[in-house]
């Protein structure tokens, strides 16, 4: 009968393995650190020049009473700036996890940008039913009706733009932009964006807002440098 290895023996073996392996790690990490030092940054601003109006409900005259008005337009000013194609040296994007909440009869956030393979959760944080769906060619889906506290998820495998709606509340809509690379950024409240870790080279960037895109704009990133590129969307 073969004696079973004791736990202490296993732990000792693991410690020896770790001690012998440690000196090799800095040598392996060095090329990666050097590569990051060599990359540059693109930053700039997206100006949305057309007027942004709050998402209005359809004026359903058959309703017996009014609904509380939504007046926030800030989320409609969020733009996405992205490379029209990934740098040749770029690694494949790492699939992530994102959340598109349904809250106060709105999708939060209104714009979501993810990489291919990302799973997006759609929790319902309202007291009423919602029915999230999309008829986009990139990823058509219909999650059906589900109540508060429940969530359903969709994996986005193909790059493209997915327009998301609620089948019950026609004023609810959102955009999910799916990229097959990780070179994109959302603008902040002032319209500023920043894309880091860009390998040196020449690229074309596109700015997008509410379904309107700029043409591809060329930009050159030098080794460890910072390039600036502004957009104006009408």
């Amino acid at each position: 009968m073969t004696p079973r290895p004791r736990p202490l023996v296993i732990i000792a073996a693991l410690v020896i393995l770790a001690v012998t392996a440690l000196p090799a790690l800095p040598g392996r990490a060095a090329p990666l650190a050097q590569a990051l030092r060599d990359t540059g940054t693109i930053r700039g601003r997206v100006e949305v020049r057309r007027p942004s109006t709050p998402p209005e409900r359809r004026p359903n005259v058959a309703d017996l009473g009014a609904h509380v008005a939504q007046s926030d337009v800030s989320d409609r000013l969020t733009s996405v700036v992205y490379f029209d194609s990934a740098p040749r040296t770029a690694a494949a994007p790492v699939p992530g996890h994102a959340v598109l909440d349904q809250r106060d009869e709105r999708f939060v956030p209104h714009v979501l940008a993810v990489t291919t393979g990302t799973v997006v959760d759609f929790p319902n944080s309202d007291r009423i039913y919602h029915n999230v769906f999309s008829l986009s060619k990139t990823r058509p889906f219909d999650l059906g009706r589900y109540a508060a506290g429940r969530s359903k998820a969709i994996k986005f495998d193909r790059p493209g733009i997915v327009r998301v709606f609620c089948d019950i509340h026609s004023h609810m809509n959102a955009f999910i932009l799916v990229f097959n690379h990780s070179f994109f950024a959302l603008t902040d409240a002032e319209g500023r964006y920043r894309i880091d870790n860009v390998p040196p080279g020449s690229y074309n960037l596109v700015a997008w807002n509410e379904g309107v895109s700029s043409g591809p704009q060329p930009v050159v990133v030098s080794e460890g440098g910072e390039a600036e590129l502004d957009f104006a969307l009408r």
Partner: protein
Amino acid sequence: MKRALRALLVCALALSRQLPARAQALPSEPVSIADGHVTISGDVSAAFGGADTGFFNYTDYEHSALRVFRVDLTTAVKLNDHVSMLGEVRTENVGPLQAYAFYLRVRPWARRAFDIQAGRVPPTFGAFTRRIYASENPLIGYPLAYQYLTSLRADALPINANELLGMRGRGWLSSYSIGNPVPAAGLPLASGFRWDTGVQVHAGAGLVDATVSVTTGTLSNPLFRDDNSGRQVAARLSARPIAGLVLGTSAARGPFVTATAARGAVGAGRDGEFTQTAWGADAEYSRDYYLVRAETVFSEWRVPAVGTPVIDAPLRALASYVEGRYKIRPGLYAAARLDHLGFSELTGSGVRTTWDAPVTRLEVGGGYSILRNVLVKVSGQHNTREGGRVTSLNLVAAQIVYWF
């Protein structure tokens, strides 16, 4: 219908040019102007169906719900946080524009669900009237309670039971001896296509909503100007006890016979006696990919007893339907509705039968969304009626719907 289809395409193209290019070619959101103070939305639908020789789907003598091109434009003008004006104009088959709704909505406390609406207001009674638009109707036909024309009229009265029984199954064009002698369409139990004029108060608290209104016309005969001395009082109570479940009950009562017709039957000053009283109950449950609705409407009309054999009891009708919708895949659904309209019995000369011919309808169909706001529907109907010239009729129809 070719003209209707052309007009639909012209409308869609015209509307698509109103907004900048977005993710899809046609606008999918209401048009908002004047810094959000004015919001305009629209519904455009064109239905193409077989010839309804039995007038099962007619909403009046000229229009069948299965063969109609309809454009609705709705506008909300927000004067401030408390006061809005709402209006809707409609045209059918490229006819003249008609004001379907036009009322003032006052919300005294911006954060409280308490509203006062005055003008040509939405019907207080029932559930279906909240989803009368083609984009919200899973099928093409309408529930019998809100569309089917009974043989009863507000402006013309039968002189006796025989005359009424002679019009069984002829609600699309009935005529009587008293009042207006011109043949015209009869009354539905509740009109889904005309709105009443008056004042409406709505309050919501938590899971319960209540509405009360006083209007000039009645459920079956809504009016812009009153034609008799009475008013209709209507009320509705609805509750949402759990997510996805809506239960409602409604009631309405008001004089429906015109003063002229009542005077012709029993003399002046008695038009307030001839009332329509209606009760309704409705339920809706939805979850995941299915939706089930049921509604029943009971109506009782009191008409003058003039000649023999007399109409010695109120004329009653009961309409009930159950409908369901199931989403098969994104953009595609199947739907069905089973509907029955029955009538109370009346004794004529040597015969006792229902005062109008009972109708049963089964409609099965489905829809496919080409775009989020462009829907194509197809449905088939099997109609049966226990009287009239056509007692059984199968109809097939298609409808295209665009809304923004």
